[in-house]
């Protein structure tokens, strides 16, 4: 059906933006505009201070109406920023919005050639010429509307994921909350108190966990991972792997016809299980059995069998008795759900700080991480809340806190970024030991104290007043006294300008954080980019911090970059709101960059069929010959088939071969040779 379409005689309008001095500072905008007037097909050219402003946009609409334009070119910032704006302006003037083409003379010109005005101006002229060439060949396109599945998915059940799921469900959207571990709660459930208010972490988190569990709009899928993702905004088909948990819920029991059965969380199985393993929730500082829960407040309160450790003795099955909750033959299950939008909230892990050899973590007994500290100071932790030295169980009297341990580290071993919450939680830790251990002195080795949040600076002063000692200096190394197991912290006190060697009983490393282990795999499944250090990449650092460049996928919490609980929750609410918009609208418009077969050119060779990663192409019989056919609903418009077809028989809408060749020719053959 599609053919190389002959446009009516092209009539192009060109609008060059000053962007204040952003563009005009290094590009001679008037000269570019004058030059545009000399180009073939250009009927009108104009310039304006801010093309994106209302008067700027009006200029476009007016020119279209007055000059009967067939195409519009704006030379300004990046199409990634303002293409939608100017498409709307084009539409307002009565022209199909896809008749618009943008020349990027800011991000890729004036800003990167700030000291070469002549060359920048020449480059801008070329860019306009290239854009006019394409605009002259653009055609009317109609975006495709697709219905949006009225369901959402949240991946990661930390405080961020929980908040997003609650908001979505409370907005009336069926929400799948997928968590890879046996319980929701994330890192926050490992914390004792939270700065700066010092409320108990579990006390404020547990009610939320219960809300999530009880919320009828949320389908809670713990011990579950994302296996595969297909589709696009509005219609994601997500395949999930429900890992074999070895224990069934009361609901599952009912489905199996076991009356009144299923796990009640009684824990009878634990008493009889003979296998002992370290509990990862307690960072290995406490034991658990092969059948276990992380801690008493888990949600859902369902036990899990660790099949890597289980010896299948069957004692637990016996102990469970009539409830028949334990199934040692259980296998992983795959399930597929359809959702319209997705929120990723996969959180973080602690950077393996033993890589910083100089601090001796894992070498010296009495060097611990802050997360271990949280467990040791927590009343429900392995020591019942008594902070002890691992080497001898004694109560430490001199405790050094090493901040920026592996953060803000440009040696190539640690992380270049600030982990953002370690300053604040170390202040909290100092407070906690002062409160609990009479006569203790916390020494805080810091580079800068970053207490940026609401009431944070006040908290900092409070801890100073409470008697914590602050030493500004990065710790060079830590040495263990082999006899006493005390530690010598060597640093330069940069305020006094002298080296110090301080003997302490315990060192707490405020270790850097990094994206959680499976973030990389998960982001690839959803086609989301990451920044250089692995944190998931937001669509725009300022204007779209919850979105991603993949339509329909949003970010919440630390997976996007280090942030504390208040910021995590705020972003989660933002992401939930963004994820609910397409669902509430009920349909989304897809950019109509589809492939089309030009049947008269198609030889029916079928070579393109394997090129398409989405299986959108197939050979069909038509009028007695074999031709290729595109299933538009599957085509995402990458153009891989179009770049391949040996006969040039695939027309890529908006990126058609004649359009691209016109751009190439315009640059190389047009202009002043």
């Amino acid at each position, binding site marked *: 059906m599609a053919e190389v379409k002959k446009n009516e005689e092209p009539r192009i309008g060109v609008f060059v933006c000053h962007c204040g001095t952003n563009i005009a500072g290094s590009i001679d905008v008037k000269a570019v505009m004058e030059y545009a007037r000399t180009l073939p097909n250009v009927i009108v050219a104009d310039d304006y201070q801010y093309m994106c402003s209302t008067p700027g946009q009006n200029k476009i609409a007016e020119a279209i109406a007055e000059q009967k334009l067939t195409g519009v070119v704006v030379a300004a910032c990046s199409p990634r920023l303002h293409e939608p704006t100017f498409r709307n302006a084009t539409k307002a003037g009565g022209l199909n919005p896809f008749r618009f083409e943008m020349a990027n003379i800011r991000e890729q010109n004036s800003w990167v050639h700030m000291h070469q005005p002549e060359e920048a101006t020449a480059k801008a002229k070329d860019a306009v010429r290239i854009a006019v060439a394409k605009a002259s060949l653009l055609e009317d396109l109609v975006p495709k509307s697709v219905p949006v599945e009225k369901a959402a998915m949240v991946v990661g059940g930390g405080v961020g994921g929980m908040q997003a799921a609650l908001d979505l469900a409370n907005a009336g959207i069926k929400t799948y909350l997928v968590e890879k571990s046996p319980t929701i709660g994330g890192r926050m459930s490992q914390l004792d108190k939270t700065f700066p208010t010092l409320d108990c972490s579990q006390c404020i988190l547990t009610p939320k966990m219960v809300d999530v569990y009880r919320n009828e709009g949320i389908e809670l899928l713990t011990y579950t991972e994302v296996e595969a993702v297909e589709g696009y905004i509005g219609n994601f088909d997500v395949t999930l792997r429900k890992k074999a948990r070895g224990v069934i819920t009361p609901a599952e029991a009912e489905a199996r016809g076991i009356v009144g059965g299923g796990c009640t969380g009684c824990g009878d199985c634990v008493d009889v299980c003979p296998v002992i393993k370290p509990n990862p929730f307690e960072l290995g500082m406490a034991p658990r059995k092969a059948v276990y829960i992380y801690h008493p407040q888990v949600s859902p309160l369902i036990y899990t069998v660790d099949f890597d450790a289980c010896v299948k003795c069957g004692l637990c099955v016996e102990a469970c008795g009539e409830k028949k909750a334990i199934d040692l033959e259980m296998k992983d299950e795959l399930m597929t759900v359809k959702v319209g939008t997705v929120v990723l909230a996969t959180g973080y892990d602690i950077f393996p700080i033993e890589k910083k050899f100089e601090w001796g973590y894992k070498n010296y007994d009495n060097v611990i991480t802050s997360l271990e500290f949280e467990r040791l100071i927590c009343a429900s932790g392995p020591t019942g809340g008594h902070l002890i030295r691992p080497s001898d169980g004694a109560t430490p009297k001199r405790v050094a806190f090493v901040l920026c341990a592996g953060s803000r580290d440009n040696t190539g071993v640690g992380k270049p970024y600030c982990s953002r919450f370690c300053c604040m939680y170390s202040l909290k830790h100092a407070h906690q030991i002062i409160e609990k251990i009479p006569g203790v002195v916390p020494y805080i080795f810091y580079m800068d104290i970053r207490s940026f949040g609401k009431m944070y600076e006040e908290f900092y002063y409070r801890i100073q007043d409470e008697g914590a000692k602050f030493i500004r200096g990065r710790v060079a*190394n830590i040495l263990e006294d*082999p006899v006493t197991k005390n530690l*010598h912290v060597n640093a330069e006190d940069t305020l006094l300008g002298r080296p110090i060697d301080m003997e302490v009983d315990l060192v707490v490393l405020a270790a850097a954080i990094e994206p959680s282990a499976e973030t990389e795999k998960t982001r690839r499944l959803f086609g989301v980019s990451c920044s250089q250090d692995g944190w998931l990449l937001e669509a725009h650092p300022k204007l779209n911090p919850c979105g991603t460049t993949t339509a329909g996928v949003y970010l919440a919490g630390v997976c996007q970059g280090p942030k504390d609980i208040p910021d995590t929750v705020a972003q989660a609410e933002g992401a939930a709101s963004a994820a609910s918009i397409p669902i509430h609208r009920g349909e989304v418009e897809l950019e109509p960059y589809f492939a089309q077969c030009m049947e008269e050119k198609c030889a029916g060779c079928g070579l393109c069929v394997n090129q398409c990663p989405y299986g959108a192409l197939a050979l069909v019989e038509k009028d007695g010959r074999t031709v290729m056919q595109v299933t538009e609903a599957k085509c995402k418009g990458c153009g891989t088939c179009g770049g391949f077809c040996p006969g040039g028989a695939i027309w890529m809408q908006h990126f058609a071969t004649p359009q691209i060749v016109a751009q190439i020719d315009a640059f190389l053959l047009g202009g002043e040779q």
Partner: protein
Amino acid sequence: MSKNKHQYAFFLGCIAPNRYPGIEAAAIRTSKNVGIDLLPLKGASCCPAPGAFGSIDLNVWYAMAARNVVLAEQMGMDIALVCNGCYKSIWEVNHKLKHNDELRDGVNEVLKEIDMEFKGSVDVWHLAELYYDPEIVGVKKIADSIKRPLTGARIAVHYGCHLMKPGKERHFGDTENPMWIEELVAALGAEPVQYRNKMQCCGAGGGVRGYDLAHALDITNEKMINMRDVGVDAVTEVCPFCQLQFDRGQIEIKEKFGAEYGIPVLHYNELLGLAQGMSPDELALDLHAIDVEPFLKKIL
């Protein structure tokens, strides 16, 4: 490319042959017992000492070290050596010239005057790392070569700065808490003992001993205190200059601070020689400033 992994040009250095000839004798004998041939690197000069030369004229340091490397290139063999200072000079200059074309061209300009050219065809090894490398010797083979285990000896290990640092360039992994020489010591049947601030400098290197003896001794004294505190029978190292500093240094410390430690100081090759059955005479242990006799009594 297939160089013989068991034959090396032996770069002697200055301090070993002049002050502790036992180290030289031990190196040749002990390495032979574990299957390594050390052949003399004829015509070699001073490495030259990294602190003394390097801090005055880097170009002289590069050129002289490069000349030593070229001698080995002419033999078609990698270099093995027994001194951290030599390692710093020869390993590092070899490494730098291999990775920096500009520097290499400059050095070759100088070497041209004596009809030599640095090609970058050999590597440089400390004998101790060859001993540790399981593909060349390995701890097991060392243990198997022992005739007279040093049972009961508590030994402190000093690594020395120039061997392991700068850690970014070197290839030893953990430079803050290494344990591989301890493994080599344990292979002799002795007990390696941890002490505070193990990685601290001996006090001598980097020209400190030459420039400011009092300061150097201050550092050495601190190390001796830390070793004494955990009770050791001897200290071992892999560097004759560190050895000199601990050994003669204890005499000088006694004169300066009045403190006496009496901890014998033995190069790892000397220890290995003893364990393999070499006699104290063959190892010229009587040339040590601190009497080795009490240590020998304990192990023989």
